[in-house]
């Protein structure tokens, strides 16, 4: 069973943006950093509080790449697919990550350990091909190096599963 959502955590956010124009996106951003994603209850709460129709909120949430409607993994892998990374073989890195984690880009592993995403550019083209895991950069990757990095994030559990 998923844990019940504690809406009271949103109280300081309501205060912060009270009466401000254009508050919807910052509210969603802060809600997501609190809960890790945007559960339905939160969206309903935001809709009531900001007096914005839920349909419009859903429109905004699904428009921007940054918002998630489902829980993410403990570690977020962002495999950069920008131009510089592309010409230096980023696709191979992504495919090998995807193969290793057995998920498609956009997916989350069954154990909720990793979510795999692509990003258009993280602005560190000199590291190409690059990926970010949470806040850390890993650059000059090859398909093999990319997978090797993952080991840092799950010591030995892989062998147990196998």
């Amino acid at each position, binding site marked *: 069973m998923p844990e019940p959502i504690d809406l009271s955590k949103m109280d300081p956010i309501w205060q912060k943006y009270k009466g401000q*124009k*254009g*508050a*919807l*996106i*910052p509210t*969603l*951003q802060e809600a997501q950093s609190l809960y890790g994603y945007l559960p339905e209850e939160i969206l309903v709460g935001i809709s009531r509080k900001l007096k*914005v129709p839920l349909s*419009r909120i859903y*429109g*905004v949430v699904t*428009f*921007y*790449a*940054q*918002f998630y409607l489902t829980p993410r993994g403990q570690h977020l892998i962002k495999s950069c*697919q*920008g*131009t*510089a990374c*592309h*010409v*230096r*073989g980023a696709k*191979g890195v992504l*495919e*090998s990550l995807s*193969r290793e984690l057995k998920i498609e880009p956009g997916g989350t592993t069954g154990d909720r350990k990793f979510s795999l995403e692509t*990003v*258009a*550019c*993280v*602005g*560190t*083209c*000199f*590291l*190409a091909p*690059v990926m970010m895991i949470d*806040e850390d*950069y890993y*650059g000059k990757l*090859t*398909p*093999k190096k990319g997978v090797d990095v993952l080991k840092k994030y799950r010591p030995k559990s892989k062998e147990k599963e196998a």
Partner: protein
Amino acid sequence: MGKLISIEKLQQLQKTILQGIDPQRPKVRICMTGCRAFGAVEVRDAFKDSIQENGLQGKVDIVETGCHGFCARAPVVAIDPYGFFYQQLSAKDVPQIVQGTLLEGKPVEKFIYKHPPTGELFPLEKEVPFYREQMKIVLRNCGQVDPTRIEDYIARDGYLAIARVLSAMSPEGVIDEVVRSGLRGRGGAGFPTGNKWKFARNAKGEPKYIICNADEGDPGAFMDRAVLEGDPHTVLEGMLIAAYAIGAQDGYIYVRAEYPIAVTHVKKAVVDARALGLLGEKILGSDFSFDVKIKEGAGAFVCGEETALIASIEGRRGMPRTRPPFPAVSGLWGKPTNINNVETFANIPPIIHRGAGWYASLGTEKSKGTKIFALAGKINNTGLVEVPMGITMERIIFDIGGGIPGGKKFKAAQTGGPSGGCIPATLLNLPIDYDSLTAAGAIMGSGGLIIMDENTCMVDLAKFFLTFTQSESCGRCVPCRLGTKRMLEILKRITEGVGELSDLDTLKELAPMIKDASLCGLGQTAPNPVLTTLNYFLDEYRAHIEEKRCPAGVCKALIRYQIDGQTCKGCGVCLKACPQGAIRGEKKKAHTLDSTLCIKCGICYNECKFGAIKIL
């Protein structure tokens, strides 16, 4: 420091700051932005420790700067007053530098830049070929100052341009100065900045807004990131001057959330400027008031388009709308709004300081000043370079960029990202400015310059850009939403070896329709990468279609891997690395690859140290 209630107070503060600076006192400038990814934090800590151990504490300053530009050599450090440049450092190297330079005043040869083509050593930062050929106006403070210290900016004449504007210039005079400078918008389209300001100044309606577009979404461009991270006050000062000129009191900086350091530094800059009264009510004792809010983007490329960006600030889906009315007339909340890019704003304080005449003397007839390019891809010296407009592609790529790695041949350079086009080797002598690039079928764009070598497939590249624009198309205009999809499907077919010659005609037919019938720049430029590659690399398209062959060895459906028995040493690295178990062989004997099991992931190709894996 209290609020600066007059221009004299600002000048006094600058004087006090400068008096406290001993130019002979050693200063270690460490890039703490881009170089972080290469261990700059550890290098900084090692400097701190080593300075302490050698009893130099209090005698040496460590300045945590923004990007120095030479990212390929990260982490980079420069030490003043000597002007020495050290590169590719790690923490363990630091004690030698402290000993050699900080204690003995000499360069430490081991970590000096050695120019690959000649082997010549360049101990001085200003003489390193990568830096020597540049002209830093926008990036004048990047890598020099600590971007989190407003004092550093003020010491280098920061906020004196707005002081001059407030004391001696009318709003019209400021606009006239910017018009005469010839500055054109650095976000991509190159619209004359002064004229844009004039429209917003003349527009009816109150209040008016200033927006700084820091939603640098063009993959392969990172100059706005560097400016915001390395010199955020320049951008604020540029915004202040623009606000004074058009009569705005409120400003927004719309910055990508993907740039956490930039967000932190800009927030700090705003707080510090406010504390000194350089933002807020009655700035420097004048009647002019202006303040700035920061909005973090939520991840949509199309929000770089000004009307989409405005929609996003207003809390809606970032979808562009028809223009006119232009934002100058009806922008944020329906009010007159002036939007400029980060680099454009950063050009303003130097223009005011040194005059329109000086600025207009740089560059070409119609493109004045300098432009920052982000060099990336298959080039030795990846990084940021600022050069005068009109410089040739060849000088950027070979003299500054150090040419192509691994002795490979230059094939093309992509300018302007997904909206731009590729410039082939035959146009290496092209002087770069807004108009020459447009004439070549590309665009200046925000200044991303991706270099490609013989191993880059141009059909695959066109497919790559279309994949990007197709997924970032907001969907409002049918030609963009569906047209890019159809073009992408065709390109996919060609790269999979099932394309037909008639597909090329269809691409050429679709492209102008998408360009003409889309509302915003995204759709209007999306076909450019396809058109330029068709124009300059038609042979490659034909090879994919007629011979089912990818000359660059990239398109998976058209290549296969094979182990060259002569070259293979039987080391077993590929055998272990292959995720499919497709490689067999005994130790120290040539291995073989079973192509029926191979998924062409390329791992063996990357891992082999002997070049024994061949692409056929």
